[in-house]
């Protein structure tokens, strides 16, 4: 194996059902329900999924949800903004921890 990530592995996701079918079926039933049209549209949910995929840096999810976003009618501009939302929250999450740094330095400093 020359790399941990293989594009064809995306199509093997269902193999995870082989170890425990009951848990897999429960997960898939929940997963399908999450992405069905609800208070949010399928298109909006796919954009959120794309942003989260970038936050958790999952190449399988990025592959799947880039296509899903296009197939729900989104465009590259909207998808780019969704990635920036993920980026801003990740960056902000680092920065807000700066307050903890300041708390520590304030306590230790004269």
């Amino acid at each position, binding site marked *: 194996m020359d790399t941990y990530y293989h594009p064809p592995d995306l199509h093997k996701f269902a193999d995870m059902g082989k170890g425990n079918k009951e848990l897999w079926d429960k997960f898939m039933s929940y997963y399908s329900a999450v992405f069905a049209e609800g208070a949010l549209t*399928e*298109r909006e949910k796919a954009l959120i999924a794309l942003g989260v995929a970038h936050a958790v840096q999952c190449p399988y999810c990025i592959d799947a949800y880039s296509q899903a976003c296009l197939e*729900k009618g989104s465009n590259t501009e909207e998808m780019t903004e969704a990635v920036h939302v993920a980026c801003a929250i990740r960056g902000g999450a680092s920065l807000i921890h700066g307050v903890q740094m300041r708390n520590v330095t304030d306590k230790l400093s004269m």
Partner: protein
Amino acid sequence: MQDAEKGAQQRSRIAFLSILSWPIPLLKHMGLTLLSRRNPLASTERQLEVLAETKACLPFDERLAAVSLAPLRATGITVFQINVGKLCNQTCRHCHVDAGPDREERMTRETAELCIRALAQTDIPTVDITGGAPELNPNFRWLVEQATALGRHVIDRCNLSVLLLPSQADLAQFLSDQHAEIIASLPYFRPVQTNAQRGDGVHEKSIEALQLLNRVGYGQEGSDLTLNLVHNPVGAFLPAKQEAIEAQFRRELLRHHGIRFNHLYTITNMPISRFLEFLLESGNYEGYMERLANAFNPAAAAGVMCRYTLSIGWDGNLYDCDFNQMLSLPVADQAVRHIRDVTPARLVGLQNRIIVTGNHCYGCTAGAGSSCGGAVTS
């Protein structure tokens, strides 16, 4: 070197260099069709080979058999679809006709008369006229008038930009006088996507043409002039849900351009002709065929439009649909191959004929299905 000779050489050098600085679209228009570029895919035999060779899906007929639909049969004929030729003022990258400004195939008056004569012997309610840009055929208006006079509902499949050509200044008025339905291509509500598929500046022209159609009464509330739009994906992926993307188009076109329309139809890109070229060149061919086949929907297969359509080519030959026409796959019935052969008695046979199918048909059966009238299932 003589000054005159030197001057001539310099002029020819400047002329050559000036070609290099021509705008890209102008250079592209010198030969965008597969035929003018002598691309092997201009041959329908080559296209059929590529379609048959794919490893991404079961042969379409086997898939149909698995859902008890083989052989696929017509269920009647309610759409008389006339393709008047391949001439077009645009050269869209996904065109299944390989249409363009350099194409010369066009329906003659004689063949148009045969169409109307055959139509008059039937009670087929809808006449759907397509191309190329059908309006550029000199017999287009005669066909619309004759079919309308026979009491048939006439559809013009319009690329929109044709309405702005100086030679077509009265086209919008003509169509509204005839109460023709307009089905207009607009792949997306933003210019980047439309222009990537249809050519630079086409989005802006399309918007201007839609505003013109609204001004003559098309697509307006309370008007009986119907303006429907066609959305097809700008790339190797399936179209969005029809109702969802219709709502997006309605909101965006009204907000930014004040444009109103009746309905939006989603059409899946067929893996033939120039879209097939795009798929092969971009390395998307096998992935796209797999995507189509994985999304095979038996309900969509049962409702495909070839089952209620008769497609007539520019030369009068008969096909099950416009896609089979572009792949040179004629109707299976040897006795009725040309519009001149259509009589009321033979029409009965055509109404339950066996449809000719192939792997390209996966394009019409994927997801919610695809037809000239949009999604097949909801």
